[in-house]
Every structure is written in C-alpha cells, then in structure tokens.
C-alpha cells in the first residue's frame, strides 16, 4: 500500500518536473551607440523532457522581456480657464520601462487569470502598486493610460501567436526593442504552460547600456555636471569663434 502511494505520488509529480525549458538569446548585450535605432532580439529554446510528449492539453510558450522597473507619475489634463493643464497626478511605484510579451497561441489559451496573477505575466500584472491620492476615484484610468501611452511609443507590446513552436519542442520568437529604450538589466522569461497552468519557467538577462561616446557623455553629465557644463560651453565657444574666423577668412580671401 505504502509503495503504491509513493509510486502514485511520483507519477503525479512527474509532469511538473518532466518538462524543462532551455533557452538562448541571439544577444545578451544591447549597446546603445550613437547610431542606435532599436534592436531585434531572437529568443529561442527547446523543451527538454524524459517522457513522451503529452499532446493534450497542448503545450504553449510565453516569452516576456521586462525592462528596469521605475516609478512613473501619470498626469491627467483638465481644462482650466480655457486651456488644458496637468491637473491630477497618480504616482505609480514601479512600472517596467519596457515590456514585451509574446505567446504561441491566443492569450486566453496560453495562461489562466490565476497563473497570470501569480507569475505577473500580462502588462497590467507587471505594473506594481498604485498609490492614488484619496480624491482620485478612478485610479485604474491612470494605469490604463500608462499602458496606452507606452504601447503607442512601442515600449509595451503584446504579440499573441508570435512564438513559433515546432513539435512541442523547439520554439523561437523575435522581440524588437525601439530606439527610445532605457538602460539597465532586462529580464527575459520563458514560461511553458499547459491548460493555462505554468509547468516550467526559465529566466535570463539582457544588458542594455550606452557605450562609447554615449556612455562617456552620460556618465560625465551625471557624475561631474559642472565639468560637463563647462565642456558644452567650450564646444560652443570654439564653434562660435571658429565660425567667425572662417567667415572673416572667406570675406577677405
């Protein structure tokens, strides 16, 4: 009896451990250079399993790429004295600066609401803690606005059916990052789901950072702002003096 129970337990536990995901990235570093105009990242991988492929319910893949979390203030305009001014603000404690989610099937078929909540997969779940002032009744409108504005800027994107899954084993997708992304560590996740439940997860990281001149100027402007200011003035002075000298040379020559 005890042996049978142990065997049953082992079988029950098997599907959860039976499938593992291994992933790769076309690049783990995105360099923001002077001519940076966005970047495409290929995310690929395979499902590692010891048992035979379970067909029903079918295996689905979700890939997410999340940029650094940062606080955001969302302002709502209102008409005052005839002109539109920022009237009310809601501070969102932490929202990803970039968030892309790609799935291998329509959203509802890939993950259940409960699992979404638990693993923070969809965009609204990735935005955490909203502290609205007492007098604002519709704080959800501010979160929706944040998502809407960032979707329009290409910073938030949901791409259903964009993960290619072959024989429930090999998968790949491409995530494009726009030119206006910010620096930092980007968390890349691959979730395997079956019947809306997450059965395996794997995390990886992409480093996005300014390099070369961009890096140098940015660091200087933050760490030695006075030197940076003087440098910009020196450049302006040289350019101004140079222009006047060139002008004189053209006139006299």
């Amino acid at each position, binding site marked *: 009896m005890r042996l049978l129970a142990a065997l049953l337990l082992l079988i029950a536990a098997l599907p959860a451990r039976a499938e593992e995901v291994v992933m790769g990235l076309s690049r783990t570093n995105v360099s923001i250079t002077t001519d940076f105009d966005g970047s495409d990242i290929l995310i690929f991988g395979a499902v590692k399993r010891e048992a035979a492929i379970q067909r029903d319910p079918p295996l689905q893949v979700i890939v997410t790429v999340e940029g650094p979390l940062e606080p955001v203030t969302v302002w709502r305009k209102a008409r005052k004295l005839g002109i539109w001014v920022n009237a009310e603000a809601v501070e969102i404690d932490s929202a990803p600066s970039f968030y892309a989610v790609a799935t291998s099937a329509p959203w509802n078929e890939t993950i259940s609401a409960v699992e979404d909540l638990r693993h923070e997969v969809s965009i609204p779940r990735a935005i955490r803690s909203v502290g609205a002032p007492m007098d604002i009744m519709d704080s959800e409108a501010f979160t929706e606005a944040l998502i809407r504005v960032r979707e329009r800027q290409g910073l938030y994107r949901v791409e259903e059916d964009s993960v290619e899954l072959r024989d429930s084993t090999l998968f790949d997708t491409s995530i494009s990052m726009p030119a206006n992304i910010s620096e930092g560590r980007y968390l890349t996740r691959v979730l395997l789901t079956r019947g809306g439940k997450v059965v395996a997860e794997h995390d990886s990281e992409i480093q996005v950072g300014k390099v070369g001149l961009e890096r140098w100027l940015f660091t200087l402007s933050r760490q030695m702002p006075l030197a940076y*200011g003087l440098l910009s*003035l020196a450049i302006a002075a040289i*350019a*101004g003096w140079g*222009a006047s000298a060139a002008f004189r040379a053209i006139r006299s020559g």
Partner: protein
Amino acid sequence: MQIYLPIAEVSVNVFLLFGLGGIVGVLSGMFGVGGGFLITPLLFFMGIPPAVAVATGANQIVASSISGVLAHFKRKTVDLRMGLVLLAGGLVGAALGVWIFNLLKEMGQVDLLVRLCYVVFLGIIGGLMFVESLNAIFKSRKGAAPKRRHHGWVHGLPFKMRFRTSGLYISAIPPVLVGFSVGVLAAIMGVGGGFIMVPAMIYLLGMPTKVVVGTSLFQIIFVSAFTTLLHASTNYTVDILLALILILGGVIGAQIGTAFGTRLKAEQLRIALASLVLLVCGKLALELFITPSELYELVAG
C-alpha cells in the same frame, strides 16, 4: 540617418536636426536674431523633451552669440560697462529663472509654463513685426523723422552711472531690471532674449542703435552660458550632441543667411519671418486650447 542623443535619450534624424539648425542660422544671418525662440519650440515638435530643448537651446545660443559679438568688438560697438550692468541683473534673473523652472518641473507644470511664455512672447513679437513690415511695404518710404525719446522717470532714479560708449548718464536701476527680466526669460524659455532686450535698450534706456546689438550679444553670451551651467548641474538636461549638431547647422546657415540678406528685399523677408513666428506661436497656442487626443502624460520618476 538616425542619431541617439545621450541626454535626451531619443533617436532623431541627424539631417533634420542639422537642417533645423541651418534654417535658424539662415534666419539669424538675415535678420540678426539669435533664433533661440524658434529652435526651442521646433525641438518640442521633434519630440525632444522640453527641459532638454530649453537647456540645450541655451547652449546653442552661446555659440551663435560669440560668433556674432566678435564682429561687434572689431567695430567697437559694444558698450562693455552697460553690458556688465545688464549682466549683473541677468545673472540674478537667470538663477531665479532656473529655480522657477525646477520648481514647476517638480509640480508637473513646466511644459505649461514654457508653452505659455512662448505663446505670449511669440504672439507679441510676431504680431508687432508683421504689422510693422506690412506698414513698411504699403506706405511709401517718406523718411519719417525719428521720434525724439524722452526719458522722464528714468532720469529721476538714484545710482547714476556714466556709460561712455553709449553716451548716457543714467541710473543703473533700469538696465539691471532689464537684464534681470531677460535673464528670467532666458532660463525659462531657452532663448537669448535679444528680441526683448533690443527694444528695451532702445526705447527704455535710450541707447544709440549702433551699440545695442553688440551690447545685447555680449550680455547674452554670459547669461546663456550661466543658464547652461545651471541647467547642466541642477537637472542634467544639456545634450552636448544635440547642441553640436544645431551649432554646426547654425554656423553654416548663418553664412548663407548673411549672403542672402544683402540681396533680397528686407520688408518681404521680415514678413516671412513674422509669419513663421506667428505660425509657431499658433501651433503652440492651439495645443493649449484644443482638447488633446491624449489627456494623460507620463513623467518618469
């Protein structure tokens, strides 16, 4: 070709920026205006954050003013003493301006402040210029006698100083106040303020026209340099790369503009400039009055 601006953190077309600097350079070469009042709002339209546009505009003005003032020094049309008095007021004004700017930035209202300043001042300047150049075109040149300026209250003030180059003996208070108000505007709007200071120097201080532009440029260099430093060290919004492209475009544009300006009819060019100023003003004003398509705005941090 796109270029990524390290401070603005946006990617923009380098030729578009260069062209913008060039066009404003052409205008400044033709009319002797600094062009800050056009560059800053045009940068808004291109998607550069307003705070970066204002601070970088100030930096670009340093370059164009230096290039302009050198010629005036050669011709001895700079009243250094007056310039220093104006500057004293200007530095205090700029400091106050940057302080107001940062205060409103914290309150989320800096966009509104900058826009309102632009709508009001571009509206006034553009309107006056338009009417004046229309008059110049329609009225035959009768050679109207220059109006005699009368000082009145300016002469009753204490702290009188002698300004030899300008041939004036007046109180230091009005020039300090003129410098101060222009300094405030320079910090908030990212402009040199020549378009306000020049009329103020002629009509309020009674300075001879020939020394006005040189003296104004002299004080603008230092006020905008000071503004650049304050913006760079308090809110990190000066973008060197952006400034450099604008400056290069402006330098080339100014030479073309100067060559053009001597050949074309002044009145018609002034009408064109006035229309451009009113157009920019109109677009900014419309955005204030028309219901925006997106009522919400994001501010990082």
